């Protein structure tokens, strides 16, 4: 800890609340080498900082020392883009059910040891340190996470009524930001909750009906092809989901999939 760092964070009023933390962070130069946990210390961390701001402090410190800063993903830092995602003390996004960017250091206390790891799943290869390649999710979306819409003038909004209960459930599912915490938390590294959220979101709305059977069949085939594990309904995914997507979506996916297969839908190869 350098003197200049201490002056760069917090104001004198916070000083007595500032925390000293020991971080153990997964460092991996690139996908081809083996990574390992490396210990760092940060001090005078304000409880009002977000977890990512705390990592920013560490990185400034590393840059000052001429070391390689820790790579981690982030974008909006307001819990809506799904880019940030870290395994914090063995929990996806840490001890609160929120995104890593919305996790605040007040969830920790002075002297805590914090282990930080990347999402671990073979379809999410580590790019560097804590940053993983989550494009497997994009390919699952491409396999069926879309609807057909007529071009031209926007249709009259009331032309297609949607029951309130359905629109609420569809919206709940649509809050999925694709962060990958479900895969990270799942003992099987299954992407079931993610795929189920998409299938539920589109399958509950009238606009999602034309592709409903093909969607579920192709999205499930794609998640298998990507190498995700199968679901065993343990529930770690839903408990880790920053948006609280429920296990009900998984039952709905299964229901739609078995129905679609019985109706003769087959995945595109």
């Amino acid at each position, binding site marked *: 800890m350098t003197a200049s760092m201490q002056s760069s964070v917090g104001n004198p009023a916070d000083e007595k609340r500032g925390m000293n933390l020991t971080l153990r962070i997964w460092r991996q130069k690139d996908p081809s080498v083996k990574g390992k946990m490396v210990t760092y210390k940060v001090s005078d961390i304000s409880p009002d900082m977000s977890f990512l701001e705390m990592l920013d402090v560490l990185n400034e410190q590393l840059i000052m020392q001429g070391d390689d800063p820790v790579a981690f993903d982030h974008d909006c830092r307001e819990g809506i883009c799904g880019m940030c995602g870290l395994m914090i003390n063995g929990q996806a996004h840490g001890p609160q059910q929120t995104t890593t960017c919305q996790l605040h250091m007040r969830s920790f206390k002075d002297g805590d040891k914090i282990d930080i790891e990347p999402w671990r799943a073979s379809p999410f290869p580590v790019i560097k340190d804590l940053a993983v390649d989550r*494009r497997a999710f994009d390919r699952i979306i491409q396999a069926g996470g879309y609807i057909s819409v007529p071009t031209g003038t926007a249709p009259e909004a009331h032309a297609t009524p949607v029951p309130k209960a359905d629109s609420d459930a569809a919206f709940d599912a649509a809050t999925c930001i694709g962060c990958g915490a479900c895969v990270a938390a799942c*003992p099987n590294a299954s992407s079931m909750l993610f795929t189920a959220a998409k299938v539920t979101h589109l399958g509950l709305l009238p606009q999602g009906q034309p592709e409903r059977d093909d969607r579920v069949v192709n999205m*499930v085939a794609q998640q*298998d092809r990507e190498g995700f594990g*199968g679901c065993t309904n343990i529930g770690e995914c839903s408990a880790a989901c920053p948006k609280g997507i429920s296990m009900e979506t998984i039952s*709905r996916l299964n229901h739609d999939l078995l129905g679609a297969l019985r109706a003769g839908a087959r995945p595109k190869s």
Partner: protein
Amino acid sequence: MSCVTTCLVGGKAPVVLAWGLVVTVTHAGRRTPKVAKTNSVVKKAVMAISGIVMVLYLIAHMIGNLKVFTGAESFNHYSEWIRTIGTPAVPEQTTLWIIRIALLVAVVAHFWAAVSLWRQAKRARPERYVTKKAVAQSYASRTMRWGGVIVLLFIVYHILDLTTGTVNPDGDASPYDRLVASFSNPFVTAFYVISLVLLGMHLRHGIWSATQTLGQSNRRRERTVNAFAIVFSTVLIAGFLIVPFSVLFGLVD
């Protein structure tokens, strides 16, 4: 009406590019793991349906076992009856063999699906977390695989013990005497108890899981399904356990 398909992420080119990358840039330099050929949800459905077949048999089996409390003659007669259902219209043991074959198919299908999904899950996370905290998982859900393997070994032993009599201390005796002989050994009884408790836990999670797998659960039903799974497994296993305990404590001899 003309229709255009809106794709939420990218078009064709990025897919190809992305595929190219995923094949070459993989975890710790390994190539993309081999992919499952059969749909994982279909495997789960196979597991659920074969599981239900076995559960239906277990209900009948448990109720049948309670016949020991009606005495040796009645129990041996019941054993005789199982072998002669449908006679003389069909040869002896026909019904029994139909049940045995159905169960064998169920066990093989269940085990195949379980092993296949087990391997898929292992491939999906080759590198384990240094620190991992379980938040939602129950002991039952965590022991499905190894618990299942122990239950399978138990089934093999159980058949050699009480059906064929191969490992029974009183192998050539009547079904009733064989049962008493087996459970008079506290080690055998202990093995039965452990296996049955594991089976009970397997069913506690299995019933919930099968309801999800077959798409019959929802937020409203979740509590009921889980409560049913707990009560059902407890009653079923208690019904099985009462027999060895009664022998051990001399209530049946």
